[in-house]
């Protein structure tokens, strides 16, 4: 095992501060530097206004359109003979101010609106949401033009209008976020504890939404600056104050005389907007990193590199009846600078025609092991050691394509959550026949086979189910569909990952019966992943117990339940008061425990 590999679960308490993460990214660091420059210019503008209020107007008519560097004019002079640099700095203030007006209006309208709408819902929500869709149906440029035509080109008016037009974006964001946290447990708890709505909003809700809000504001400030200059470009800007937009349009007008004049304000504007944007995206990345969501992280381009590690057991070919054998499996995930291992050398053996129960708590690595066998680990996962023997061949020694082919033809998978495992946009029939069609079965034959399988899994009206979309059938029926789908590829190994936990108690029993019947009929070997000892006792011939990424005990079911050897196994068994009779209570009990432990199914 290489030295960088961290063999500990990620420590979520000592994550670095958001600012530190922002600064780690070179692009956002550039953004921070640029933002600093803008701030300096802003301060300089205020100082200039105080020390030499007419510096930006001081003109030398003998030096119109002087080239950059002439006579101490670092950026030259404009078509009025005024120093471009001084004007650029002074313009920072009014330009930023324009942005601030628009932002303040957008926030003042959008934040309270979004909070109220998301928190209380109901009629207020309906009205506010309708108003925001009205504002979003009007292109803001058209509204700005209309307002300017009737009220004039004052920056106050146009930026206030722009703020109103940006408010729906803030409103929608807040509303969605608040709506999401509103019914979260801790808000409920706070309400039960008798906190007032205002207090709940300010203490709990605002804390959740402030991150996304800050991001949105920094993006909108870029928009405000761009729109303000755009109005100037159209000749409808407010020319009573010096802004970058005003300088830009002056530069355009004088372009034939002074080719570079429009570049400076353009650059100032672009860099400022870039600063906001870069810092915002840095912050977003940082916040997402903290959330632990890998969903938007760029996919790891590197291929999994296998490093064979010596395993505790003999690496010889498994015995004839060992359909599936896992030896010393090591799985890790990249995190920060190193690699966090979640499975540290797991060993499993599944014999022909038998059912192996893989037991363990959430986070013990049992699903990871199952997915490794199925060749379905997430892209980010690193299989850094071990062997997976299928029918006497070490899959990990095969080329990717060959491994894929062998796994798909031999092993089928029955997932945990029936609903989320069906594509909501296709009919059941399509989803059942697609794998068959991909294997070259004709349309008609595939349909017949799918119908037969549905009938076999206990669905009475297969034709209707075939024509249905997933949201039109029940959870139990969906699980039958998934089992039928698993069977459709004629597997001789079935891996079922908690196939019953998401189902009602009565349906659970039916599904277990179904699995038992199918095994007998098709002679399959089953790897049943579960934390439910009741299910294991019901169905399994052998048991393997996993804990913290290692298999701590492997035995026949008989031996395991009678004489558990490992301390952890004894603990597991002790936690179950009695067996089958109390399964229902056990299930209820589970949900509490699962909340306490980090969730496994998404990782």
């Amino acid at each position, binding site marked *: 095992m290489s030295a960088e590999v961290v063999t500990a679960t990620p420590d979520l308490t000592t994550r670095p501060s958001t600012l530190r993460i922002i600064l780690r990214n070179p692009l956002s660091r550039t953004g921070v530097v640029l933002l600093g420059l803008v701030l300096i210019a802003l301060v300089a503008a205020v100082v200039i206004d105080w020390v030499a209020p007419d510096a930006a107007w001081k003109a030398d008519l003998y030096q119109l359109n002087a080239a950059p560097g002439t006579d101490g004019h670092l950026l030259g002079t404009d078509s009025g003979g005024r120093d471009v640099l001084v004007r650029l700095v002074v313009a920072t203030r009014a330009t930023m101010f324009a942005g601030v007006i628009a932002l303040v209006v957008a926030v003042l309208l959008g934040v309270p609106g979004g909070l109220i709408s998301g928190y209380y819902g109901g009629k207020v929500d309906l009205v506010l949401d309708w108003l925001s869709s009205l504002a*979003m149906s009007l*292109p803001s440029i058209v509204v700005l033009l*209309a307002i300017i035509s*009737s009220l004039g080109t004052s920056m106050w008016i146009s930026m206030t209008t722009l703020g109103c037009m940006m408010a729906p974006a803030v409103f929608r964001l807040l509303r969605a976020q608040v709506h999401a946290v509103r019914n979260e447990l801790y808000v409920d708890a706070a309400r039960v504890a008798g906190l007032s709505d205002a207090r709940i909003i300010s203490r709990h809700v605002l804390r959740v939404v402030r991150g996304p809000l800050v991001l949105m504001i920094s993006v909108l400030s870029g928009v405000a600056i761009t729109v303000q200059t755009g109005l100037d470009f159209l000749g*409808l800007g407010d020319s009573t104050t010096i802004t970058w937009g005003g300088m830009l349009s002056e530069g355009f007008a004088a372009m034939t005389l002074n080719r570079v004049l429009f570049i400076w304000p353009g650059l100032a504007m672009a860099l400022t907007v*870039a600063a906001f944007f870069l810092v915002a995206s840095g912050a977003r990345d940082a916040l997402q990193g903290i959330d632990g969501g890998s969903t938007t992280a760029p996919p790891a381009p590197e291929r999994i590199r296998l490093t064979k590690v010596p395993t505790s057991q003999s690496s010889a070919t498994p015995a004839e009846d060992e359909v599936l054998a896992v030896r010393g499996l090591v799985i890790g995930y990249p995190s920060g600078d190193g690699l966090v291992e979640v499975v540290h050398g797991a060993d499993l053996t599944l014999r022909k025609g038998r059912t192996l129960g893989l037991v363990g708590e959430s986070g013990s690595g049992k699903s990871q092991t199952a997915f490794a066998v199925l060749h379905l680990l997430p892209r980010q996962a690193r299989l850094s050691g071990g062997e997976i023997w299928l029918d006497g061949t070490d899959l990990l020694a095969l080329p990717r394509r060959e491994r894929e082919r062998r796994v798909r*033809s031999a092993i089928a998978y029955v*997932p945990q959550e029936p609903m989320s495992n069906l594509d909501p*946009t296709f009919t059941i029939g399509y989803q059942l026949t697609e794998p068959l069609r991909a294997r070259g079965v004709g349309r008609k034959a595939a349909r017949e086979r799918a119908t037969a399988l549905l009938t076999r899994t206990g669905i009475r009206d297969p034709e209707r189910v075939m024509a249905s979309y997933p*949201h039109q059938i029940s959870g139990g029926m969906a699980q039958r569909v998934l089992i039928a789908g698993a069977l459709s590829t004629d597997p001789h190994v079935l891996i079922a990952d908690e196939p019953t936990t998401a189902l009602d108690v009565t349906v659970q029993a039916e599904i277990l019966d179904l699995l038992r019947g199918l095994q007998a009929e098709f002679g399959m070997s089953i790897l049943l992943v579960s934390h439910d000892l009741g299910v294991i006792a019901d169905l399994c011939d052998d048991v393997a117990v996993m804990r913290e990424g290692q298999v701590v005990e492997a035995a026949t079911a008989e031996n395991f339940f009678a004489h558990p050897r490992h301390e952890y196994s004894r603990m597991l068994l002790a936690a179950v008061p009695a067996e089958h009779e109390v399964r229902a209570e056990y299930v209820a009990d589970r949900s509490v425990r699962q909340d306490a432990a980090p969730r496994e199914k998404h990782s």
Partner: protein
Amino acid sequence: MVRLLFRRAVAALVLMIAVAVAGFVITGLGNSDPGRSILGPQATAAQVEAENHRLGLDRSQVEQFTDWAGGVVRGDLGRSYLGDRPVTEKITNYLPVTMSLVALSMVVIAVLSLVLAVASVSGRAWVDRCVQLLAVIGHVLPGYLLALLLLLLFAVQFQLFPVFGYTPIGESPAQWLRGLALPVIALALGSVAGAALQARGALMDVLEADYVRTLRSRGIGGRSVLFRHALRNASPAWLTSLSLGFVALLAGAFMVEKVFALPGLGTLSVEATSSGDRPVLMGVVVLTGGLVVVVNLLVDLLQMWLIPKARTA
């Protein structure tokens, strides 16, 4: 399903009415004197008054609104103060340019963003960097600045494209495309990245969905999973960003039209704004608002077609 469609249509209609009211209100906030602007400074007060009377501007606001709204329902948007031509005639003259510009840009954005998103989730790191760079450029460089740079480089310097002007597609599709090429690039480039990032995010989410894993366990190839299942499920986010992008494109088109001297709605509106031509502005508000409402409705329909569950919502 039919009831849902009906409800959406009614909601769109109500929104349209609100847009019209809003258009009337915001253009009428100030005190303007159209009679004076039409007749010029030399006209006497009596002449100005007579002109205002002829235009019906001496009536109450409510009366003026009902009169105008009645016209709008019949497809009559009133008469422009400048040149005394019907507003509908003016708008139909200027609309094709903006519509060509926006429609072509939409196509470019849709195609490119999809290609980039797919390439990005297929694990091409350089595509990701490309998209990110595009996003920064699109955000930082306003369309009109980009348009100006393109104009100076490709139209003035290399003379590959016309400096100004619009050829109707009916006259010569090649010239039409040639005239619009630079404006469309300037307009679309900024929005491509946004839509691509949306599509990419949604695709990434979908690709991590449970059913994708299950599909793969059945031996469905990566390509089928991506193109048949993931794209379809990721389409709502992408479509939404496109429909939001449509509004942004309209605004961008107004600026880009100025750079390439294209006679589009932007040119018309800016002209109307600086001359206080209220009927034209109200017409533009109603038209663009209507377009946005219709585009949103279309996107809704498209989503309902792609995502069966949306049909029951």
